[in-house]
């Protein structure tokens, strides 16, 4: 009782520790994943979107450069002012891209950088507007010179600034990638640690349970043996007691009552009448004592052996129950150990009793087979099968008795539908058994 409780407590404690470990580890992993997601959304994704927008801005700046180059090439039959809508389109696209870029710009961008880009663009458009104003006034040559001197330089500066931002984005992307990698390897390491800890825990628990189970089995086996020993001792003691009482009854009370009967017979010749009644009472008492003695322990078993005892018992059984019993013997009969005889006899008795009580059979057969080393006793009926019968103490005592003579007992299906009880026992009983008996 005590050990059982301690085991439960220990197992519960183990479970608690395991659950706590799982919870702690899961919490830790979730935390790491959250950090990763945050890094992804706040840094990496944002960075990527920003880089794409910067590329778009760079592309627009390139378009500006190409448009300026075309203006300087002067191989179109159109005035410089024709380029105004083209610049307006690029400006619209640039401003849209810049506004979007502003929103997703990395957090570490300095105010100076922001100001520089916006300011440079404003001055670029101002310069461009002035150049178009010149062109509208017909001063195309002057406008072209200005494009060459100031506008192209401004565009180049803008392009360089954007390129720097792109490089910056790349660098921070690399940093973020390194951090992501660190998180991943940390998580991986922890998974391995956790798995190792779990493995150790499982192995320890299993070992402990194995050990515990083995101890339990040992104890159960010992208990079972003790119980069996007790039962056997009980049976032996009972047999001994029965035998001695039976002997007393047969030898002493039988002699006394026989003597009383003879004396009464003798007296009957002289004294008349009433003594006859007494004599009859004595005779009846004598009969009863004899049958009681036989029931407790058939003396014929000790004196004439198992076979004679069977003859006596079977004829009585037939008379009392009306069940026809056929008896059959095979092999050369020999004198059996008293102990073996009484137990075989009792088993046969119990089996037949079962037939009478449960089998609903009109016939039964008893077979005794003498083999060189062993003796086999079979009791078979033609009634209902075994599974339809109630199980009682009878079977238990049969097993214990067979056990006492180191034999085996089988309950089989009979040939004619009933039950076949077969006992096989070594013909030479065990030494210790003799001494104990």
């Amino acid at each position: 009782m005590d050990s059982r409780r301690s085991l439960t407590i220990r197992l519960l404690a183990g479970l608690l520790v395991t659950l706590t470990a799982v919870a702690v580890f899961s919490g830790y992993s979730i935390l790491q994943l959250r950090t990763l997601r945050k890094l992804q959304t706040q840094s990496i994704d944002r960075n990527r979107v920003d880089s794409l927008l910067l590329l778009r801005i760079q592309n627009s700046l390139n378009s500006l450069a190409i448009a300026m180059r075309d203006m300087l090439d002067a191989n179109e039959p159109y005035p410089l002012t024709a380029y105004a809508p083209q610049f307006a389109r690029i400006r619209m696209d640039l401003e849209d891209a810049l506004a979007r870029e502003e929103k997703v710009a990395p957090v570490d961008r300095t105010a100076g950088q922001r100001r520089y880009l916006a300011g440079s663009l404003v001055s670029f458009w101002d310069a461009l507007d002035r150049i178009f104003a010149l062109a509208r006034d017909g001063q195309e040559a002057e406008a072209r010179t200005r494009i060459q001197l100031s506008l192209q330089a401004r565009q180049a500066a803008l392009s360089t600034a954007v390129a720097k931002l792109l490089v910056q984005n790349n660098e921070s992307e690399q940093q973020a990638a390194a951090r992501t990698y660190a998180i991943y390897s940390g998580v991986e390491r922890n998974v391995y640690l956790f798995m190792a800890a779990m493995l150790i825990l499982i192995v320890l628990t299993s070992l402990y349970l194995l050990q515990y189970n083995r101890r339990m089995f040992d104890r159960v086996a010992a208990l079972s043996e003790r119980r069996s020993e007790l039962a056997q001792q009980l049976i032996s003691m009972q047999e001994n007691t029965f035998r001695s009482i039976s002997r007393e009854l047969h030898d002493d009370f039988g002699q006394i009552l026989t003597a009383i009967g003879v004396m009464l017979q003798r007296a009957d010749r002289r004294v008349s009448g009433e003594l006859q009644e007494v004599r009859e009472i004595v005779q009846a008492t004598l009969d009863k004592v004899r049958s009681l003695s036989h029931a407790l322990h058939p003396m014929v078993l000790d004196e004439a052996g198992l076979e004679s005892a069977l003859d006596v018992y079977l004829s009585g059984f037939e008379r009392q129950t009306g069940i026809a019993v056929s008896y059959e013997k095979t092999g050369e009969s020999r004198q059996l150990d008293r102990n073996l005889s009484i137990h075989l006899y009792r088993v046969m008795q119990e089996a037949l009793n079962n037939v009478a009580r449960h089998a609903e059979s009109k016939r039964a057969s008893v077979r005794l087979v003498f083999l060189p080393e062993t003796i086999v006793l079979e009791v078979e009926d033609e009634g209902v099968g075994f599974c339809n019968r109630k199980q009682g103490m009878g079977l238990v005592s049969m097993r214990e008795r067979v056990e006492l003579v180191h034999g085996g007992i089988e309950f089989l299906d009979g040939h004619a539908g009933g039950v076949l009880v077969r006992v096989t026992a070594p013909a030479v009983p065990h030494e210790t058994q003799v001494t104990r008996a």
Partner: protein
Amino acid sequence: MTRRTFFLSPAGLLVAANPDPGFRLVDVTQQAGIRFRHNSGAFGAKHLPETMGPGCAFLDYDGDGWLDILLVNSMDWPGHKRQRSTLALYRNNRNGTFTDVTQRAGLALEMYGMGVAVADYDNDGFPDVLITAVGQNRLFRNTGKGSFVDVTEKAGLGGRSAFSTSAIWCDYDRDGFLDLFICNYVKWSPEHDVFCSVDGRNKSYCTPEAYHGSTCWLFRNRGNGAFEDVTAKSGIFDSNSKALGVAMLDHDRDGWPDLFVANDTQPNKLYRNMRNGTFEDVAVASGVAFSEDGKARAGMGVDAADFDNSGVQGLAVTNFDNEMIGLYRAGTGGLYADIAMKSGIGAASRNSLGFGCAFFDANLDGRLDLVAVNGHIDETVRNISRNHGYAQAPHLFLNDRKGGFHDVAAQLGAGFAEPKVARGVAYGDFDGDGDLDLLITTNQGPALLYRNDVTSENRSLRIRLTGTKSNRDAIGATVRMTTPDGTQSRTVKTGGSYLSQSEMAVTFGLGRRDAAGRVVVEWPSGLVQEFKDVKAGAYECTEGKMMRARERY
């Protein structure tokens, strides 16, 4: 797109179903007597223009009601002269055959031609022809007597040299005279040709990144046979453009023609007509400048049409391989959504390098289908990619009722789905049976004429418009036809596709119905005419007059 949305898309479901498309396309090139072969002049130096042409057109140059065929040709390069190659004009013999009348029509001249745009710019009742070219474009006026005269100089279009591609006639200022928009590709000359290679060994044709862009041109028709260059004045000028395709559409639904220009590796342009002679580019704001992932694609051919019967025109733009066709559906607020993936066109066109494309109702079921012809620009592509051949099969995307398209090219009979190095495509009913036939040009190869045989009981309603107050071709007129199935709309237009021009008459598919409940014509002049219970068949409709049935389709 996730796998789930692909399987849920109608196109995904229909690929498995494979119903009968309801028509066949029969190659009748030989029996029609069309012997044309395109000469790109290629001699091994791989000059960029060699791989870009040619275009084709369906036109009725002699006004007999039967469609004739004009095929543009290039020529040998100077210093590498081997053969003479000219444009080709084929007159319809009204029995399924054609006669080559190039010589008689005065068009047997050599030029490095690319595309064609046909319209009656002088409103004399006979279609005139603009041929775009590498070098000097040419305008040919139709004399009305079966011949053409070169009026390039007289019209004020001379003295210009460029790499011109597609062109379009439209009356952008709505003065009743057709104006001319010409796409220019890149600044190219044999002296400035750049070395490019697809496979790293052999020279191949360059993609346009290698060259400077070139502005498109807009010429206003003065109404006296001469044109005024309004490129700068109208705000069209853009030296970064590398334009290949142009389509007219009414983007802001104000009745004034707007223009969509497909640029190769540059953002597309959507020029909104400001109704004061100027245009404003709203492509970026409308969502048609870039692909859905913000990339400028290699726009080639383009067509605008009311393909979802919503009453508003959408756009299809063919692109380079791995870029997919852009299928833009007009939404609210002037925004377009690229539904190529959702409709099934995207995935089906991923491996194609598309050029010409046109919306037309191939099976006359009342929904516009899309033909797109393909072909790579360089044969060395075979060395680097298994997915992309030099010759590629055309697509014919059939429009199902649920906004999906699926390619039935392989089901249309032998030949059509054969891989081709195709460039131009145009549609027109050359045999007068009421359905639309196809004309395809191939680079350095033949022109192919496919006769459409509609196998279902579907009928059509065809109307040819003639303007009086509006320009005579009624370009820009919109016809809306209503049946119990809904309302379809068509706009009379030139250009579109790639370098090519389809017939100007409008064709409605009626399905099994034999009449339209209502036909409304909205003329460019602002006049709106309505006709009730119009039976299936072919009609003439002159501005301000009753509709007259024609004996044939």
